[in-house]
């Protein structure tokens, strides 16, 4: 029994143990239970504030997210943006490089495409303009990812805080450019760029305004999956992520891998910026990324780099966001209700991973006397 010498050792009430393995089905059941719990808590919160029938509220959310074809497309478009940024972050996180700077990298990409739309909008054919936009925005994102990666690899500068600060530098650069680009004058916003000629806008593909968005993000998703799983570079990333010492021992150039991976991560973030600006909003502001650079971090991390899970998590979050924006306007609430609901869902999703990875045991009742 649990005695040391003569002294009795108290066994703790709750014991936590790391699981060796868990059947995939049980893991998913835990996660689904967490989502349902989160939805119930959200329902309680909504009812407490609005005093509405919770079922009515959820019907309102579904209607807000996929109620008609326009809303459905907006939801799909936003799911793709979140998914794309999460895909961009995946290689960096797999390398255990905390790229908190997606927001800034997306903004710089968006800035590059807005600049091209404004300055060369009517001078070149649209296909050439779009290709230029893709290249320029990718390069802009790459630069924004390269700077912290350089300092991390050569001087071990903390990348979490560095990339975080780079976001706000990017935002200030945008407010700086807005001064020159604002239209109408004095509005402090850029307005819809090239509204008449649609220069630099994504063309309609497959009968949908957002067809090109779908194709590009899905290609990125598949490409990233293959890159990480089947290429030498993808393997190097996971070795560096597991242990930098092992990587050095295996003659992997760690500095090079860090810089290369962050250039890829930042580059895709920049490209997502062009998808947001050229493919959706057709304008630029400091809220172009709209916090999605941060939400995508959570999506990428929680999905454990599994692209299928990433689609599911982004879909759940965006669905709830679009839906709650709808019920907020319907019942005259503040539209920030959606962030509140997103937060609650995230807490539950993050918390449930513990129960996937750990087993919790209560102290067993002791039978009889020794």
């Amino acid at each position, binding site marked *: 029994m649990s005695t040391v010498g003569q002294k009795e050792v108290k066994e703790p009430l709750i014991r936590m143990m790391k699981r060796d393995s868990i059947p995939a089905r049980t893991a998913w059941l835990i996660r689904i239970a967490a989502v349902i719990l989160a939805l119930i808590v959200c329902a309680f919160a909504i009812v407490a504030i609005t005093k509405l029938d919770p079922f009515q509220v959820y019907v309102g959310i579904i209607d807000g997210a996929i109620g008609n074809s326009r809303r459905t497309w907006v939801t799909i478009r936003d799911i793709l943006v979140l998914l794309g940024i999460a895909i961009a972050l995946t290689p960096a996180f797999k390398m255990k490089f905390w790229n908190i700077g997606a927001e800034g990298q997306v903004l710089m990409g968006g800035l590059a495409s807005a600049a091209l739309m404004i300055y060369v909008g009517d001078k070149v054919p649209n296909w050439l303009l779009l290709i230029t936009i893709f290249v320029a925005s990718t390069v802009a994102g790459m630069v924004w990812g390269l700077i912290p990666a350089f300092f991390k690899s050569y*001087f071990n500068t903390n990348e979490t*805080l560095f990339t975080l600060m780079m976001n706000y530098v990017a935002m200030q650069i945008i407010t700086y450019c807005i001064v020159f680009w604002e239209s109408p004058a004095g509005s402090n916003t850029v307005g819809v760029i090239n509204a008449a000629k649609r220069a630099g806008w994504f063309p309609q593909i497959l009968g949908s305004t957002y067809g090109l968005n779908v194709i590009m993000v899905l290609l990125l998703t598949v490409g990233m999956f293959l890159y990480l799983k089947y290429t030498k570079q993808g393997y190097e990333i996971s070795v560096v992520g597991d242990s930098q010492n092992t990587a050095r021992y295996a003659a992997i150039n760690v500095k090079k891998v860090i810089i290369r991976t962050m250039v890829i991560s930042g580059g895709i973030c920049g490209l997502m910026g062009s998808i947001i600006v050229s493919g959706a909003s057709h304008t630029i502001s400091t809220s172009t990324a709209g916090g999605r650079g941060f939400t995508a971090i959570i999506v990428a991390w929680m999905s454990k780099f599994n692209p299928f899970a990433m689609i599911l998590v982004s879909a759940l979050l965006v669905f709830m966001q679009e839906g709650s924006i709808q019920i907020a306007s319907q019942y005259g609430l503040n539209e920030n209700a959606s962030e509140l609901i997103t937060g609650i869902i995230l807490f539950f999703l993050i918390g449930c991973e*513990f129960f996937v990875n750990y087993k919790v045991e209560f102290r067993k009742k002791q039978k009889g006397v020794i």
Partner: protein
Amino acid sequence: MDIITVFIQKAIGQGIGILFGASGEIITEKSGNLNLGIPGIMYMGGIAGLMGAFFYENATDNPIPMLGVIISLLAAFLCAAFGALIYSILTITFRANQNVVGLALTTFGVGFGNFFGGSISKMAGGVGQISVSTTASLYQKQIPGLSKIPVIGPILFSYGFLTYTAVIIAIYLTFYLRKTRSGLNLRSVGENPATADAAGIGVTKYKYLATVLGGGIAGLGGLYFVMEYLGGTWTNNGFGDRGWLAIALVIFALWDPSKAIFGSFLFGAFFILYIYIPGLSRSAQELFKMVPYLVTILVLILTSLRNKRENQPPASLGEPYFREER
């Protein structure tokens, strides 16, 4: 009044909110927890304090300012500490990743603040712009007599009591970290939890207490902004990016709360410098607003270049600790 006096006064006014946040975050980070939820926590503190005072003032015909202050202080501290408690449970007990939980908390907290800030007047029956002038007047009350002294008065004595509280908290925290047994224990938890654990220090207890109390202190920064700076009203996203500046200030102050005092004044000065430089175009003003972030990046690079041991972040910052995984 002299323009430089006004500038210093306004810079300090801008800095104090950030100072609360930075002090709270330093205590949190000293336990090894990198709480990126501080911006959200500050929003939670601000709105909870405002709501506490608002419901109190609405419930009575003749609100007593002192009671309003106590209620709002408690509400702000407790709500912010609750936010930090969510963070603690998820990162310490449930061992979730700190960055992920912190960012989720910021999303939640900013949404929490803006949601209640935007709908509080509607919930109370549509009184239009909410204002808790009675309570806020006590928050804004300057030190009588002393604040009337020319030059020194406005610079040193023209603030509400929260400003002095912020400075006292920061000085006390430095004393606590450097000179007390418990402060030493806390630092050892942040540097090397396994060693601290072996030495019989309750790692989990220290992490929880430091994070929750740190969150509460940061929440007072939100309260300061709402009450003393804005005078008892709420504007959505009015608090802006100051929460991230607070995290930047932690780096700038090299994890020392007393250094954060002057750091916060300096950040406050950077924040408003563009208003006081004559002849700046609008675009140049925008570039000037970048300065606090650029300075932080510079400090970050310089500290990593010099690689001095006492200037580094706590060694286990951001790492989870699980006894059985050593």
